[in-house]
C-alpha cells in the first residue's frame, strides 16, 4: 500500500503566516523557494519539533498531529547533520533502530557505503560522510516519512557530484514520502518527483516536476531565470552512439550511448535557450532532434526575448492528446521576422538535452 501524508498546517511565524495544505505520496517531493519562505519551519511543524497553531497531519488515515515528536515516525535529516558527537558512527546509526535484523542493517550500510565508517567518531568524518550517516541514521529508525533539510548544503561543489548517486539510490529504494528542502535547481531537477514552490509561507505552485518545470512562475520563484522543461520517457532504441527516448507525443534522440538496457525510465531536461525554431524543416543539419510542434502560447518575458510554449505533434501535423510540452526562448526580432503566431506549426530544433537520471 502506498503511504500518503496529507498535511494542513497553520503557524504564525511573526514575519508572515505559514499556511500549507498538501498531499504527499511516495517519492521525493522537493520544497523550494526563496530563503525565509518557511521551508524549514514546514519540516519542523511536520516533525512536531515546533508547535503549530492549527494542524492536521493524516498519515494513511491516522491523525498524527497530536502525537509528540518522538512518536510521529518522521525521520528528520537536519541541515547540520547533527550526529551525536559522543557515539561512534555505528551507535549513531543504531540509536533509533527498532528490532532491525542484520540483513536490513547491512542493506542500508551498503546503500550509503558506510562499512568503512562504522567505528569512526563523528568529528573525524568529512562533511559528505557525516551527511550520509545522518540520512542512513534516519532510515534506520524506519520512519513513515523522511524529511531532508538541504542534505547537500555545506558540501563543497566538487564533492556534491559524488553525493548524487546516494540520493538517487535513496530515491529508488525509499518506499515512503520524502520531503526534500533545497534551493539548488540541479538537485531538484535530478531528484524530485514532485515539486512544491513556497513563497512567504504559502504554496505558490505544486505538482509533478514534469508538469510545472516549464511554468515561468516556477523558474522565477525557484530563483532561476533559466526556463526549461523536464520530460520523462523510456529508452526504446539503444545503439552505440545514440539512443531514442520515447516521451509523450514523440521521440527524443540522445547522443549518449546508454549503458543500460532499453525500457529504462529516463528523465531529461531541455532548456528553453537550447531550442531554436524553423518554419521549414531544415535539412543537412547536425542537430539530432528536429520535432514538429505547434505554438501554444507566446510569452513576452523580457524586452528583447520571447518564450514560446510548444506542443509536440506527429510529423504529418496531427495533434496528439497529452503530448509533451517544450519551451523555446528566442529573440523578439526572430519572432517577428518569422511571423510566429499562436497555433502555428513549426519545427523545434533541440540543440542540447541534459539527462537527469
Amino acid at each position, binding site marked *: 500500500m502506498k503511504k500518503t501524508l496529507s498535511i494542513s498546517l497553520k503557524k504564525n511565524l511573526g514575519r508572515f503566516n505559514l499556511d500549507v495544505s498538501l498531499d504527499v505520496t511516495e517519492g521525493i517531493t522537493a520544497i523550494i523557494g526563496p530563503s525565509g519562505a518557511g521551508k524549514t519551519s514546514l519540516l519542523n511543524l511536520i*516533525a*512536531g*519539533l515546533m508547535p503549530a497553531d492549527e494542524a492536521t497531519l493524516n498519515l494513511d488515515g491516522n491523525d498524527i498531529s497530536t502525537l*509528540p*515528536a*518522538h*512518536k510521529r*515516525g*518522521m*525521520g*528528520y535529516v*537536519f541541515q*547540520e547533520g*547533527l550526529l*551525536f*558527537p*559522543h557515539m561512534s558512527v555505528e551507535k549513531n546509526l543504531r*540509536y*533509533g533502530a*527498532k528490532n532491525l535484523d542484520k540483513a536490513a542493517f547491512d542493506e542500508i550500510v551498503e546503500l550509503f557505503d558506510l562499512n568503512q565508517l562504522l567505528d569512526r*567518531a*563523528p*568529528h*573525524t568524518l568529512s562533511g559528505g560522510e557525516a551527511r550520509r550517516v545522518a540520512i542512513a*541514521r*534516519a532510515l534506520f*529508525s524506519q520512519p513513515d516519512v523522511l*524529511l531532508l533539510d538541504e542534505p547537500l548544503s555545506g558540501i563543497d561543489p566538487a564533492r556534491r557530484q559524488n553525493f548524487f548517486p546516494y540520493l538517487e539510490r535513496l530515491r529508488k529504494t525509499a518506499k515512503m514520502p520524502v520531503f526534500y528542502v533545497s534551493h539548488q535547481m540541479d538537485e531538484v531537477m535530478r531528484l524530485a518527483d514532485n515539486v512544491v514552490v513556497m513563497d512567504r509561507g504559502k504554496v505558490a505552485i505544486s505538482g509533478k516536476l514534469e508538469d510545472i518545470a516549464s511554468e515561468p512562475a516556477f523558474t522565477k520563484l525557484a530563483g532561476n531565470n533559466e526556463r526549461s522543461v523536464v520530460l520523462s520517457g523510456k529508452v526504446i532504441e539503444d545503439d552505440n552512439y545514440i539512443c531514442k527516448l520515447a516521451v509523450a507525443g514523440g521521440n527524443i534522440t540522445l547522443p549518449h550511448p546508454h549503458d543500460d538496457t532499453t525500457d529504462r525510465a529516463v528523465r531529461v531536461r531541455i532548456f528553453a535557450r537550447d531550442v531554436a525554431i524553423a518554419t521549414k524543416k531544415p535539412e543537412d543539419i547536425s542537430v539530432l532532434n528536429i520535432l514538429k510542434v505547434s505554438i501554444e502560447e507566446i510569452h513576452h518575458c523580457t524586452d528583447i526575448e520571447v518564450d514560446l510554449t510548444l506542443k509536440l505533434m506527429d510529423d504529418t501535423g496531427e495533434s496528439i492528446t497529452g503530448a509533451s510540452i517544450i519551451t523555446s526562448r528566442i529573440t523578439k526580432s526572430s519572432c517577428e521576422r518569422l511571423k510566429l503566431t499562436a497555433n502555428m506549426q513549426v519545427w523545434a530544433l533541440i540543440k542540447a538535452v541534459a539527462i537527469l537520471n
Partner: protein
Amino acid sequence: MFELTSVEVTALLLSLKVAFTALLFGLPIAIATAWLLANKNFFGKSVIDGLIHAPLVLPPVIVGYLLLLGFGPNAALGQFFSDVFGISFAFNWKGAALASGIMAFPLMVRAIRLSMESQNLKLVKAANSLGASPTKAFFTITLPLAFPGIISGGILGFARALGEFGATISFVASIPALTQTLPLALFRAIETPGGEDSAFRLMVISLAIAMVALALSEVLARAVKRKQGGQE
C-alpha cells in the same frame, strides 16, 4: 611526626563522610537544577537563580545562621524533616553535610549548566525525531554530553564541601567526633597552645585530598574527552 592522632583520624573520616554525602545528594539536584535553568523559561526563574547563587556571595556565617533558623530542631523545616524522614540536622554530621552541600551547590550548578548550555540543543530534537522520548534523550544525549561539566562541578563541589567552615560552625558548631570536620579541627588546633604539629598534619592531609581530587578530575575529564572526541 606524621602519626595521626585518633582525633585527627576521626576528623578526616568525618570530613570525607560529610563531603561525599553532600556530593551524593547535591549532584543529582544540581544536575536537575542546571537542566531546568539551561533549558526552560518559567516564572520566577531569576529568583531561583539568585537563591541558588546566594551562598557564593553571602558570608558563610549568614548561611549557617539561616540554616539554624530554618532547620533547627524547633524550626518549621527541621520539624518537617524529622517528622517525615526521621532526619534531624541539629548538631550532627548530617547538619554538616547539609551546610556544606548548600555552600557547594552553586559551584556544581554553574559548571553543569555551562556544559549543558554549550551543547547543541538540536541534538535532543534529532534524538526525538529518531523516536527517543524526552527522558531517553536526556539520559542518552544531554547527560553524557554534560559529563565534563558534571565531573568538574562534582570535584569543585566536593572540594568546597570538604573545606566548608563558616556555615558549618555556625549551624552545627564544632563538636569533636560529631561535627568537627577537618577545617574545624584545624582551626581548633591552631587556637590551642601546642597544637602546631597537629595543625600542620591536618593541613598536609587537606592538601593531599585536594591534590588527589584535582588529579582525579583531570584523569576523568581526559577519559571523557578522548571518548567523545572533539565535541562540536
